[in-house]
């Protein structure tokens, strides 16, 4: 066993991380003060990290430095106007003028929607529809043909399940029932992957505790 040396710079931090990991895991037994200390420490650290980073990497280079040093007055005025509009987010804390928050939200929403919607239609609708079309290439091998047909049937059946404009009877009834089966298979796959993901995260922490901290894993 080769335990991390707490007297070295790196080893000390490994010990801090290991103790905090165990403090968080102690919640599995029951709520306790150690867990709460670790939780509050995490929230405080995360906030401090984000604020510092936004100050140094966003506000300083894109706002304060250009306003102070850029020779162009027009640029300075633009930047100050944008900063004022951005600062309207904080009017949420002043009930009388809290309506001003809608201005920056509207600008961000407008920009994001304008940039995303036309491209999303192509990427998420047209390209996905195209992927369901059966082509001659799919029938070159029996397995690709089979999967392409299953995919097409799955898409049609699942969409029919979400078709609420007509009563579910006649042809629509069995087809939408098949749609439910596809949806359930999807849920099952998602659940399986979720289990895998959660176990992976736990493995990662144990790799740290047993490897980096205690040195049991080489």
């Amino acid at each position: 066993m080769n335990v991390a040396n707490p007297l070295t710079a790196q080893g000390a931090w490994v010990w801090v991380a290991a103790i905090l990991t165990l403090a968080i895991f102690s919640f599995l037994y029951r709520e306790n003060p150690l867990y709460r200390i670790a939780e509050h420490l995490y929230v405080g650290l995360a906030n401090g990290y984000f604020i510092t980073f936004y100050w140094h990497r966003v506000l300083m280079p894109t706002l304060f430095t250009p306003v102070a040093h850029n020779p162009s007055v027009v640029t300075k005025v633009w930047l100050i106007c944008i900063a004022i509009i951005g600062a309207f987010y904080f009017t949420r804390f002043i009930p009388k003028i809290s309506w001003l928050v809608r201005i920056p939200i509207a600008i961000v929403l407008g920009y994001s929607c304008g940039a995303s919607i036309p491209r999303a239609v192509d990427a998420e609708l047209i390209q996905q529809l195209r992927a369901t079309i059966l082509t001659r290439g799919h029938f070159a091998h029996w397995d690709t043909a089979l999967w392409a047909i299953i995919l097409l049937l799955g898409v049609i059946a699942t969409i029919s399940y979400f078709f609420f404009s007509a009563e579910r009877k006649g042809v629509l009834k069995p087809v939408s029932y098949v749609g439910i089966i596809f949806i359930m298979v999807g849920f099952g796959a998602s659940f399986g992957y979720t289990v895998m993901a959660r176990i992976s995260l736990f493995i990662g922490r144990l790799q740290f505790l047993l490897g980096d901290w205690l040195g049991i894993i080489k």
Partner: protein
Amino acid sequence: MTAQDGASRHNFWQKLQAIDRRWLYLVVWLVVMLPLIFPFRIRPKATPPVERLFQFIDTMPRDKALVLSIDYGPDTQAELQPMLVAFLRHAFAAGHRVGILACELTGLGLGENALRQVTAEFNVHAATRQDSVINGEDYAFWGWTTPYITIMLGMGERISKVFPVDYYGQKTESLPIMAHLKNYDDVGILVSIASSAIPQSWINLAQTQFGVRLGCGITAVSAADYYPYLNSGQFTGMLAGMKGAAEYEDLLLNRLKENGMDWGQRYRGTEAMSSQTAAHLAIMAFIIIGNIAFFASKRRKS
């Protein structure tokens, strides 16, 4: 069977259903921990999405760069950090230029850790300049900026405009690597390693507008959401969760052995597979036992 036998069996199933969850945590803890200490060999066979991505990077022309987007934080590093390390090892072993950026702020430290680890591995064994990996020449760590829309659209015009200075504070334009890495035209493939919906945005913004080729490494929990993009060819390949990382590591290890670069590096994804397998078997046992208990109690009641 006497009435007493039936009642005691009924009690057993009821007790099983009401078991304190902390016993289950203890079982999972042991099931995960023991294979890490006493591992049994599991070699995951690479699935087609992993193999396609590996092959593409392996055979990518030398004048094209691999761009890695670190779109995750420490909460999912167990699954995603092995992928980042594997991609870096692969790219440097194949002699590709690499550009690294982060759309998630907390990914910066993880990117630096991975770079420090992998560059040290290569530079310790380097006999010549060509074998070594140098910041600014073989790779550039551009860092992080916000919002991600600006990154994805701006990189199509000029990367150095989006990241005027790199993570270490050097002027991006002054880095020798940037002479051959101006925008998406110089990118062979961009791989988004993500724990969020960022890969979808890479498709919507960067691929739709600029036609950049994409791959992704994602957490297992979001894998089911990304298969449609794989099927439609919008992603060249995909690594899903820790198992995806282990599959890639296996392909990489074979390639490194062929190139004489197997220096006994640690492969965290592969290392975790015995624990993962044992844990999955335990969860399956829990589900089966839980269902038997449920139906047995129900039958008894009826």
